[in-house]
């Protein structure tokens, strides 16, 4: 269990647990939601003990996740305020995607892309929760027009959100040395210096 004591702490245990609770809930929601989204995905209902169970469970998992997302939001929103450096970073994101980060502007704890992701997910989460409640016929009877709008918004925001999460997960896989931040909370100094130099300086005083 001895890790390099020079590693930098990026997330504490509470932050990591909160993130995993939201992440696991999201996967359950995406799988059960897609099952109703299009017949091609309907077999996914078998993962939940059958289609009726998937229908019953999905909204409860949704409300559960919404609650924990609010906590996650409160932990991180201050760190995700956009700055000019972020906008500069975003305008040159193509270089980054090409795998060349030499000329990218120096970033703090989060880069512009991560911040856009944060706010995109926040907007989607609000849309998903409100529209999901409109669709929840077993609990609420809303006027029919609202239920219809809810269905359209839920399906559209759901697709956008699944795409965002895929990019989010891929970015973590692509950037080596990142995933450990969500397992046990630390990253190496070199990782920090390369990807988030301003944060590195703030943490190490260099």
């Amino acid at each position, binding site marked *: 269990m001895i890790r390099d004591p*020079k590693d930098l702490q990026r997330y504490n245990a509470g932050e990591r647990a909160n993130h995993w609770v939201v992440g696991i809930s999201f996967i359950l929601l995406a799988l059960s939601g897609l*099952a*109703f*989204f*299009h*017949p*091609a995905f*309907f077999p996914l*209902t078998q993962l939940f003990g059958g*289609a*009726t169970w*998937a*229908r*019953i469970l999905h909204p409860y998992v949704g409300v559960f996740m919404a609650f924990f997302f609010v906590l996650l939001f409160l932990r991180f929103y201050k760190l995700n305020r956009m700055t000019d450096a972020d906008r500069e970073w975003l305008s040159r994101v193509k270089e980054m*995607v*090409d*795998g060349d*980060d030499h000329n990218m502007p120096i970033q703090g704890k989060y880069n512009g892309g991560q911040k856009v992701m944060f706010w995109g997910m926040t907007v989607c989460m609000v849309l998903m929760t409100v529209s999901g409640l409109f*669709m929840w*016929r*077993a609990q609420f009877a809303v006027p*029919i*027009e609202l*239920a*219809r*709008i809810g*269905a*359209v918004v839920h*399906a*559209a925001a759901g*697709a956008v959100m*699944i*795409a965002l999460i*895929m*990019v989010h997960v*891929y970015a973590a*896989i*692509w*950037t*080596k*040395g990142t995933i450990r931040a969500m397992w046990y909370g630390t990253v*190496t*100094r*070199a*990782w920090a*210096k*390369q*990807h988030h130099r301003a944060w590195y300086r703030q943490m*190490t005083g*260099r």
Partner: protein
Amino acid sequence: MALQSLDIRQRSATTTAAPQARHTIEVAKLIDVSACIGCKACQVACMEWNDVRDEVGHCVGVYDNPADLTENSWTVMRYAEVEQDGKLEWLIRKDGCMHCTDPGCLKACPSPGAIIQYANGIVDFHQENCIGCGYCITGCPFNVPRISKKDGKAYKCTLCSDRVAVNQAPACAKACPTGAIHFGSKEDMKDYAEKRIADLKERGYDKAGLYDPPGVGGTHVMYVLHHADRPDLYSGLPVNPSISPLVALWKGAAKPLATLALAGVALGSLFHYVMKGPNEVSKEIEEEVEKEAETEDTK
């Protein structure tokens, strides 16, 4: 092979073709509103034949009883007192599923085989495949399906598909004492309606006509109305019903396209990794950091 009268034309949440070799005639129920006396024999016959019993309710001040369709009342009589040109009319309409040619319920349903449209035009709910999501309610332009509080399944008029399968008219048509409910091929029903409309016109109802709304491709329950120009007078029968544009958008081409886009994002990520390689910490920075650490140690 099943009974020919139960051949399937459309099945919910199914993207491949239904069997099409045999051609069955389309059936229809024609409700002649002008001949209805509001006795509710049809309501009783429906409960009897289908073995459903609603709770005994209470009087809500009008004859409507029960006051609305429920999972146990698949048809209800609606009574409207309408004053036009100083004349009071009592317009009574038998409400229930219209068995649309283009059924919004079936379009919206996410569960394969929970909603079936037979080749004869009858739209039937198969509760054993129903998951209770209520999408059929969201899709229906006539506000017909109801979810049971007991079992969470959706119910509505079956047009007595079980009776029709063995060449019997629906229970309501059989029970109606004035012959206001007719049943037969859709063609025959239209022909008969024509005669009734001519008769009504002769009696001064010059706006009499057939209600077979084209917005849902026509229906397999049709009305003869004395005021066909004003269907809304009959307890809010929709004037020009069609599947809501929101439902069409929700269940349209956007979904397969979104599915492709999601597959694109997943595959795009994979190929990005394969073609650009991982984003690793550079050797240079690793050495820099090591040196920094050494100077720190010597301090």
